[in-house]
């Protein structure tokens, strides 16, 4: 069994997943592009990790400009599609609705399936039991890693909210104590000022 050139070509096609976490400033829009071959099954997953109300606008367009997916103010979503034609697909994240909060966005764009581990994956004989057991364990572990990533992002979100709350509690407590003191002192001063005026009028009436 000799390796055909087509097989060699197959393994060089870069079918892979790209996952990135980036910061999206307020009133900003960030677009990513990828060249996809027709018929490839692709999945786009995104999640907002920190910032404001934890939402972002997302939009996915095909090479013709047709909008395949459009959602406003979404915290997390997953979208699977099959490329209907060859070309550059574009997806954008927009934080234009926000005036001062920066958002951190995570996305995972999976194009096609993972590349096979071996050059001679398309062999004549079937996989042995051990090998197919290894393949199923590999798939299961991949989904474990995927769940771990989502758990980590949700934990980061929760932690960011908790730290926000902590800072807010500190500031508001100090602020409130200060306001309390200012209000009570000014109340007393105001009352004193009322009685000081009244005293001069009574003396005038008396004399």
């Amino acid at each position, binding site marked *: 069994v000799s390796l055909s050139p087509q097989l060699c070509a197959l393994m060089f096609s*870069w079918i892979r997943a*790209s996952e990135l976490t980036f910061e999206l400033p307020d009133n900003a829009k960030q677009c990513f*592009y990828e060249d996809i071959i027709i018929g490839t099954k692709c999945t786009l997953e995104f999640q907002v990790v920190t910032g404001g109300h934890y939402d972002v606008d997302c939009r996915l367009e095909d090479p013709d400009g047709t909008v395949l997916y459009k959602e406003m103010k979404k915290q997390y979503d997953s979208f699977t599609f099959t490329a209907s034609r060859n070309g550059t697909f574009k997806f954008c994240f927009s934080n234009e609705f926000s005036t001062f909060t920066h958002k951190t966005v995570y996305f995972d764009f999976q194009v096609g399936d993972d590349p096979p581990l071996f050059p001679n994956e398309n062999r004549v004989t079937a996989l042995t039991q051990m090998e197919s057991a290894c393949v199923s364990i590999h798939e299961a572990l991949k989904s474990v890693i995927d769940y*771990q990533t989502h758990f980590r992002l949700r934990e980061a979100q929760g932690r960011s909210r908790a730290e926000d709350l902590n800072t807010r509690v500190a500031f508001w*407590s100090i602020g409130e104590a200060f306001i309390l003191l200012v209000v009570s002192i000014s109340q007393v001063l105001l009352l004193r000022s009322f*009685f000081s005026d009244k005293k001069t009028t009574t003396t005038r009436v008396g004399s």
Partner: protein
Amino acid sequence: MEMKALVFCTGLMLLFAWLSPSQALYFHIGETEKKCFIEEIPDETMVIGRYRTQLWDKQAGSFLPSTPGLGMHVEIKDPDAKIILSRQYGSDGRFTFTSHTPGEHQICLHSNSSKMALFAGGKLRVHLDIQVGENTNNYPEIAAKDKLTELQLRVRQLLDQVEQIQKEQNYQRYREERFRMTSESTNQRVLWWSIAQTIILIITGIWQMRHLKSFFEAKKLV
């Protein structure tokens, strides 16, 4: 015969593995713009990043395949904001680092073109691919180096995956501890500040009444 073809294909694959990603995700970057990406990773994890840049050619109306003289400056910061890598690379580059502290590492890229005229009014297309942990392993290369059979290679891959999961779980425990400390601190703060504010309220109330009483007694109204 099969062995020769296998070695040949593996060799070609290694070559392609080292070349910049030609069909990876890409985005556009302005001249002075700095783009940062965050990688939250456990410690002792390897990260390999590869990028390729293309400059917009106004005359041709398309992107040039590659531009010599165009460089990208890569800066990587660890969770303590300490710079662990700050280097200038060419128009195609490959950077790699291993984390020594668990946490959020920041990878920043900005162009540092030597020919400013080339860039004037144009945009730069950057193809980027960042692989973390187990994905950095090049299995055909490992198989060739250690002379592993198929089954051994598959088991090696599973071992690497499990190791990555274990590291992530450890990191998760450390993060959960931080989260718990923050929540307990908030809890304490809420408790103490409520008590303190009630005391301040009572004290100012008492002070107000005493002060006003002495004031009215002085004014002979009481």
